[in-house]
């Protein structure tokens, strides 16, 4: 997000998810299916495509995942609300970046995002939402890696 500077407290989001990770992931009974499928989509995204991919994936979560999930446990609900609000804030900021032509989507990133959407829509709505929520650690790790200075060896 080098050209598109967004302030986000990743630790706060990571900690919110860390508290509910195991409970959410245990509700996902489809162990041999994945939506974000790290190796096919998120990983080896070029730096210039990171902004667009972040905006699109956060959009998927804000517009579909959080809406399609009904949660009865208040502790889980609190955690998910914290994450949803953070994603909404980041996505809206990235939309503004897009309007200023700083967050353009190239063909490869668009294709990879379509794989993610395809994976999501192949599943039944509620099962897909639960799986996507259980994969928040994949998304958060990817965002963490892409918005931190590279290590000097």
């Amino acid at each position, binding site marked *: 997000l080098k050209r598109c500077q967004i302030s986000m407290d990743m630790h706060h989001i990571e900690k919110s998810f860390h508290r509910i990770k*195991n409970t959410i992931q245990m509700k996902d009974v489809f162990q*041999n299916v994945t939506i974000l499928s790290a190796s096919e989509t998120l990983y080896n995204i070029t730096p210039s495509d990171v902004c667009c991919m972040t905006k699109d994936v956060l959009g998927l979560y804000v517009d579909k995942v959080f809406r399609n999930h009904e949660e009865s446990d208040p502790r889980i609900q609190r955690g998910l609300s914290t994450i949803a609000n953070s994603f909404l804030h980041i996505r809206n900021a990235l939309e503004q970046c897009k309007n200023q032509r700083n967050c353009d989507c190239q063909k490869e990133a668009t294709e990879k995002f379509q794989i993610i959407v395809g994976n999501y829509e192949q599943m039944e709505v509620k099962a897909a939402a639960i799986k996507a929520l259980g994969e928040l650690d994949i998304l958060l790790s990817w965002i963490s890696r892409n918005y*931190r200075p590279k290590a000097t060896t």
Partner: protein
Amino acid sequence: APCVSSGLPKPINVTFSSVNMKNVLQWNSPEGLRGTDVVYTVQYLIYGQKRWLNKSECRNINRTSCDLSYDTYDHEEQYYGRVKAIWGKHCSKWAETERFNPWLETQIGPPVVALTPGEKSISVVLTAPEKWKRNAENNSVSMHQIYPTLKYNVSIYNTKTNKKWYKFVTNHTLEFPQLESDTLYCIRVQAYVPGPRRKAKPSDNQCITTLKDQTSELKVK
């Protein structure tokens, strides 16, 4: 011949124990079968892939752990491990771990700590721990490369005054100035990554004596 899945109790507390991405599956014997000649068989699943995979080195073993580091080497993937108990012709159902994310859950081991004493100072050089290697000839991958935000919590303890204080640093070299000469100090270092509570193992205490004060030595002569 395959065992018969009967009412044999499952292994319990099946978890991954991970330090610097050395990922070991461990469990406890099922209730009521401790001390008997029960054996275990292990499988693992790469999250999102179709089939559970056998770990041949952990088929019919009598220990309660199995090193899956080789099989879970890609720390950007997530994994499940499972184990079942076998006793004669009978076997239990599988007992599974929660989804294991090495990048999030591995424990950061202690750095290598090199100390150099001065008269009233101690210089500290830290070398980040290395990721577990598939074989010795492979190039080392520093945990600092995997976690660019890796930091160090360095504590120093004056054995004469029992006074202890800390420094939180990101770079690999630091100095403790304004110390007492000819005094034994003990230093301990813990590497950690900000964010979700990743456990971290502190280094052992390393103690060193600062040099004698040369000026007072001259007066004595």
